[in-house]
């Protein structure tokens, strides 16, 4: 047990209450804003806002209009909610939602856990080693995603000579037609996601770990807390904002996943790996049903918004953004 002393302070801290014993820069500074510099504020965000308005807000608005139209090369016609109703009746759409959810649930928590563990393990090492490992783990992020996907295509080669087949052969497993069979195609994409780059989240986690105030550990040490207790009572609560941030962005990214599925399976076999992002792309640029694609992408945006809101609501209670 961590002692009441430390526990209460931690509790207070994570609740955002001011504790008089420990200086908490989070409490002090996070909510505070500088007054009287409003004009500077607008000046500083001006470029970001203009770029946003032109290249994000306006296209979204126009996508909204397109979603109520049937796209024709010469003058689209207004068809009301037909695109939406057609989408909701479309089995493939629901299947793609299911696939996306499945993929998200399998990849995101594992990715976060792995990054957290790696960051925790990097932490006690010497500076030089830390840097080496940070670089090593960040390397896949730098490599081109397309090139990596192609390499993974080789790795998942269905022939006995395929690398992954060789690998599982060592354990006595039989050849699998990894990407070619609807039973394993999704699993292959998931494995690829697990072993792909966690570099960014590792570095973000590590930064957050280094930012934890030593005084918490000191207090815990005085109370004789073990490593696991410190991990549970200090590290995990302190990293909550980081975790939330990574979780939300990872879920959003996973909902929008497109490249891997597009390059490696093209959504097949038998639509086993058709993600929503891929479906939208196909509708727009393969079948040129821009109206339907726009409707589906807006539905996807809505789903993502709801999921993110849910996460903020239930996980972000103590987190101040």
């Amino acid at each position, binding site marked *: 047990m961590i002692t009441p002393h430390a526990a209460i302070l931690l509790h207070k801290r994570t609740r955002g209450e001011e504790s008089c014993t420990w200086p908490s820069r989070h409490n002090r*500074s996070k909510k505070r804003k500088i007054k009287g510099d409003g004009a500077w504020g607008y000046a500083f965000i001006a470029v970001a806002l203009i770029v946003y308005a032109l290249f994000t807000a306006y296209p979204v608005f126009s996508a909204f209009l397109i979603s109520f139209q049937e796209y024709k090369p010469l003058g689209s016609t207004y068809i009301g909610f037909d695109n939406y109703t057609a989408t909701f009746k479309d089995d493939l759409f629901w299947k793609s939602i299911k696939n996306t959810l499945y993929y998200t649930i399998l990849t995101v928590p594992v990715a976060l856990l792995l990054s957290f563990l790696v960051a925790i393990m990097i932490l006690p090492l010497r500076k030089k080693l830390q840097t080496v490992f940070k670089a090593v783990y960040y390397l896949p992020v730098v*490599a081109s995603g397309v090139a990596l996907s192609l390499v993974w295509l080789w790795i998942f080669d269905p022939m006995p*000579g395929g690398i992954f087949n060789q690998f599982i052969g060592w354990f006595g497993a039989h050849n699998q037609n990894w990407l070619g069979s609807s039973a394993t195609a999704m699993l292959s994409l998931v494995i690829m996601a697990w072993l792909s780059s966690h570099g960014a989240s590792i570095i973000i986690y590590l930064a957050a770990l280094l930012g934890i105030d030593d005084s918490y550990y000191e207090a815990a040490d005085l109370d004789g807390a073990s490593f696991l207790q410190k991990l549970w009572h200090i590290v995990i609560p302190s990293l909550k904002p980081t975790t939330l941030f990574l979780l939300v962005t990872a879920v959003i990214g996973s909902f929008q996943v497109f490249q891997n599925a597009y390059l490696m399976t093209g959504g097949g076999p038998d639509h086993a790996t058709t993600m929503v992002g891929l479906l939208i792309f196909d509708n727009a640029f393969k079948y040129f049903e821009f109206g339907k694609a726009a409707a589906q992408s807006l539905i996807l945006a809505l789903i993502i918004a709801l999921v993110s809101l849910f996460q903020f609501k239930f996980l972000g209670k103590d987190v101040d953004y």
Partner: protein
Amino acid sequence: MSLYNNHTGSRAGKRARNTVIVVLLLLFALATLFPIYFMVISSFGDPVEAGAVSYSIWPGKFTLESYSFFFNYSEYSYRWILNSTIVAGAVTITNVFFATMAGYAFSKLRFKGRGVLFSILLAAMMIPYQVTQVPLYILIVNTFHIENTYSALILPGLVTVYNVFLAKQFMSSIPTEIMESAKVEGCSQFQIFFPDHHAVVQDGHGRHRDPDVHGQLEYVLLAVPRHQHDGYADDPGRPQELPVREHDVLLPDDGGRDDLGGADVHPVLQPAEVFPRGRHRRRGQGLIWAWGKKERAGRRRPGAVKGWLSGAGLRRVIRP
């Protein structure tokens, strides 16, 4: 004192623990790096070898044929690389610049509509890029007429919401007191934010080097205070040369501390090492920068900053 119980274990115990950790990390790194390794060894193999029926994990032979294949493939091969470099370079610079500005404003400044504007920006992260693809194309081609130009690639990515968000998260870990004290010193927000090439710091002993952060120039643009070169609170309005004895400029590891000559140091790189200490004679300098070092400098740094903030240093900053 840290997360790990260094005080309990013997030296050997600590070494054993770290060895285990390194082995584990290497194993996982091996798994994640394998595709890249495979990409590299394939690139040195015969052009046909990759994609053949049998794959070898070990490099069979070494040839640069695949590379010459790329460069001979088209007369534009070099041009392609140049194109990527131009676009990536432009986008990187503008993102660092504009995203940190916006992040700073959202995190530290109070203005009307701040919350609403930020949520609107955030909402954009949830919109799949497929949504905007078609309208964006129409916009670029039909409205701006910039198809087939670099601008078409650069403009939409000038500053991304994700980066603004990251910058805001980072900025919110900087104590607001720092900016406030800089304001008291008479800095405008512009001066607080942008680096200034006059920022040369000396401490009371004419000496300030910290081996811990030596040679690190990360976060160069992330923060940024400057002191008032000509507006000390106690000597307002009068330009004044600094009695510079030593520079606090951090140079590469060869330790060139004193061969810079005057205050004319590199405008961007230089302030990275301006670090406030309680003993500084000058006020309001190197403030936010120091916070940028926190992450990389590890445990010792935050304590130092905090000590400076809560101790005599802060009072010294604010006191007229």
